[in-house]
């Protein structure tokens, strides 16, 4: 997530906005992102309703057996259609901003000044 923040300008140059989502409450989320300096949009799903709808629930996967989301990333186009999905097999394998920028390039989502 730090790599997302550090590359925010590269996403913005492609008109791509970032949204992060977890079971953390707004209070917990705000406290943390203010501390670490994340400026993109964070949405809060303490009941894991959206997480369940997306079939991303990791039952008892968190501290004290809390239900949490498993990590997953989706690239959505402006019609909200899924164009790329990343469901990692393991917490240890995390996708980076660079990985996603390469996917965007392949999908033709490139900076405006590079378009012919």
């Amino acid at each position, binding site marked *: *997530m730090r790599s*997302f923040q550090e590359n925010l300008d590269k*996403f913005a140059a492609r*008109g*791509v*906005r*970032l*949204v*992060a*989502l*977890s*079971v*953390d409450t*707004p209070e*917990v*989320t*705000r406290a943390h992102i203010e501390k670490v300096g994340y400026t993109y*949009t*964070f*949405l*809060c*799903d303490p009941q894991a*309703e*959206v*997480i369940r*709808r*997306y*079939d*991303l*629930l*990791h*039952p*008892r*996967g*968190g501290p004290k057996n*809390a239900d*949490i*989301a*498993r*990590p*997953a*990333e*989706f*690239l*959505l*186009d*402006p*019609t*909200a*259609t*899924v164009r790329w*999905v990343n*469901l*990692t*097999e*393991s*917490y240890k394998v995390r996708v980076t901003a660079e990985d*996603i920028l390469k996917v*965007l390039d392949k999908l033709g*989502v490139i900076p405006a000044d590079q378009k012919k």
Partner: protein
Amino acid sequence: MTSKARRKLAGTVAVALLALSGTSAQLPPSKGAPKVGEKAPDFTLPDSNGKPVKFSEFIAAGNGGKGSWVLLAFYRGYW
């Protein structure tokens, strides 16, 4: 039983309980997650300031109202 043997037994029992408890670091298969070509389900959730955000409107409002691409990243939380 010596205290060393008791500790070893406790450790073995703990591992066995963990294996049986279903708590695992293994990630679920998430077969029902939205796939490429499908529409991402719409929803409304509060942002970190507590303000409700309707996801479809968030997407549509981007890029000066023309709609923007979005990277939607689910993470485990509990920083």
